[in-house]
């Protein structure tokens, strides 16, 4: 536990001493702020329209503003994740510091978990930025807080799962750019699988559809915690970390 913490702290410090954390957070704040503005604008306009028509249609902030925002944050996350994980192992391999880690009395899994936790923690900080927008809504309306919490749980799970895959890809290269591009490709595929599955109803379409990250997140965005989706994300975390451990072991046989 102490070793995990040592690695975790160094990684966090490294994120915040380089421009990475600030750049990613700024980029994210800009995008999520823009989407928040758009959805609130649409919501307000619809409210005024229905008032002018003299019909009192029920207006649900959760359904009309928060859910689409959460869906957008989920997709923006796919683009940010490669930037968070690309450095983790690729940089250590390039600069040779991996030799220090491997020859220290620390287990591989402690190194991996320390690094992965740091990426998840930074991702959580990023999500916290988007929650500022949503907190503002409480000042003007009465959104239900429970589906919001569930949505954020889903975002965190989705992020953790993709970050574990990114961590694995980072172990396969000495080059951060390659690690980032590889991770981005996988994130993209896991996202568009959702569209591919919608073209067919056969068995393959179901299997492909099941692998889609976005489809699994959708239930969270609706405010539903489905154990099927939780297990999907957790098993993906496990898969990513398992592959990372294997890959790290193979470094020694090939290095």
């Amino acid at each position: 536990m102490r070793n995990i913490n040592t690695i975790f702290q160094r990684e966090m410090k490294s994120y915040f001493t380089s421009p990475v954390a600030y750049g990613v957070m700024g980029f994210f704040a800009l995008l999520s702020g823009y989407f928040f503005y758009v959805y609130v604008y649409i919501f307000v306009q619809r409210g005024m329209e229905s008032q002018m028509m003299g019909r009192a249609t029920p207006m649900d902030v959760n359904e009309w503003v928060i859910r689409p925002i959460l869906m957008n944050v989920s997709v923006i996350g796919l683009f940010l994740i490669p930037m968070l994980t690309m450095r983790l192992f690729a940089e250590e391999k390039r600069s040779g510091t991996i030799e220090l880690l491997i020859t220290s009395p620390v287990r591989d899994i402690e190194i991996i978990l320390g690094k992965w936790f740091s990426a998840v923690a930074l991702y959580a900080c990023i999500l916290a930025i988007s929650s500022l927008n949503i907190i503002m809504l409480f000042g003007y309306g009465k959104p239900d807080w429970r589906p919001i919490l569930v949505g954020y749980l889903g975002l965190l799970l989705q992020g953790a799962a993709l970050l574990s895959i990114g961590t694995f890809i980072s172990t396969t290269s000495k080059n951060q750019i390659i690690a980032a591009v590889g991770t981005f490709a996988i994130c993209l595929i896991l996202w568009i699988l959702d569209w591919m599955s919608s073209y067919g109803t056969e068995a393959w379409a179901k299997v492909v559809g099941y692998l889609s990250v976005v489809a699994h997140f959708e239930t969270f965005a609706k405010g539903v915690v489905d154990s099927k989706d939780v297990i999907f994300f957790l098993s993906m975390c496990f898969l990513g970390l398992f592959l990372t451990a294997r890959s790290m072991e193979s470094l020694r046989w090939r290095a």
Partner: protein
Amino acid sequence: MIKVEGLSKRYARTTAVDNVSFEVKKGQIVGFLGPNGAGKTTTMRVLTCFLPPSSGSANVAGFDVVEQPMEVKKRIGYLPETPPLYPEMEVEEYLTFVAKLKGLPSGDIKRRVGEVSERCAVADVSQKLISKLSKGYRQRVGLAQAIIHNPDVLILDEPTSGLDPKQILDTRSLIKSLAGDHTIILSTHILPEVEQVCEHVIIINKGKVVATDTVHNLTNRLRGAEAVAVEVEGRNDQIDKGTVQQRMEQVPGVSRVVYKESRDSRHLYEVESLQGRSIRPELARSIVESGWNLNELRSVSLSLEEVFLSLTSSDEQPAMVGSAN
């Protein structure tokens, strides 16, 4: 302290280390000498549990590198060829990180970081970013990192490579001062370094150990067999190089006379003695008595350099070293 038996490391197509065995006793400084690509780094990586051996065994401080890597890692300090530094960290912060990683108790960390900073002369830059440090300082931070947990065994991979002469001297004296507390293996392809720093030397070439001995013995093997450069001149230009050679070969104790070159009526030879024989007085007398002028009689110093070259050049093993074995 370190015991390596029949160690081999094979990669897909090449064998980096081939059936290497050696032993290092507690408190010794051992030089690992060999040309580039000889398998020095690979052997060191096996000892530090970075690479597993393909076959054979390595034992550090009583623990096997395959069976109990955690115990080995606790007792080993390692400085790879490029010091494993994080450029975005400050020196003190980095050493604290390494101290934690090596499992030092939290209470000791601050004191220990101070101690090694003093010892490796990096205390004056402790608040500087590593990326701003000169190469010499980086190397010293690398050394500080290796000794922070006071390991029994220190493994240094080319600790002086890329430094300027002053820094090389400083680093060498630092390494020497570390002996006694630590058992040290250092690799190098610089011969004088081994002569100056190490007590024992392991010469490795193409993955094989070609010689293991003390530096003293290795140089003595050669000093025992003396080599003398001789310049002989005829008095009335009446001198034949063959006659001179024959005459010198008759001197007792001479094993070999090699004709080098002639300048006018002067002839140059290199004369080698048998083991443990001093031939210079006899040689001088016989030349003068034959009526020639002895212009020069100079003992040719044979250094570790020659042993090294003769051991690592691919053709034959030199007779001198072979006979001493």
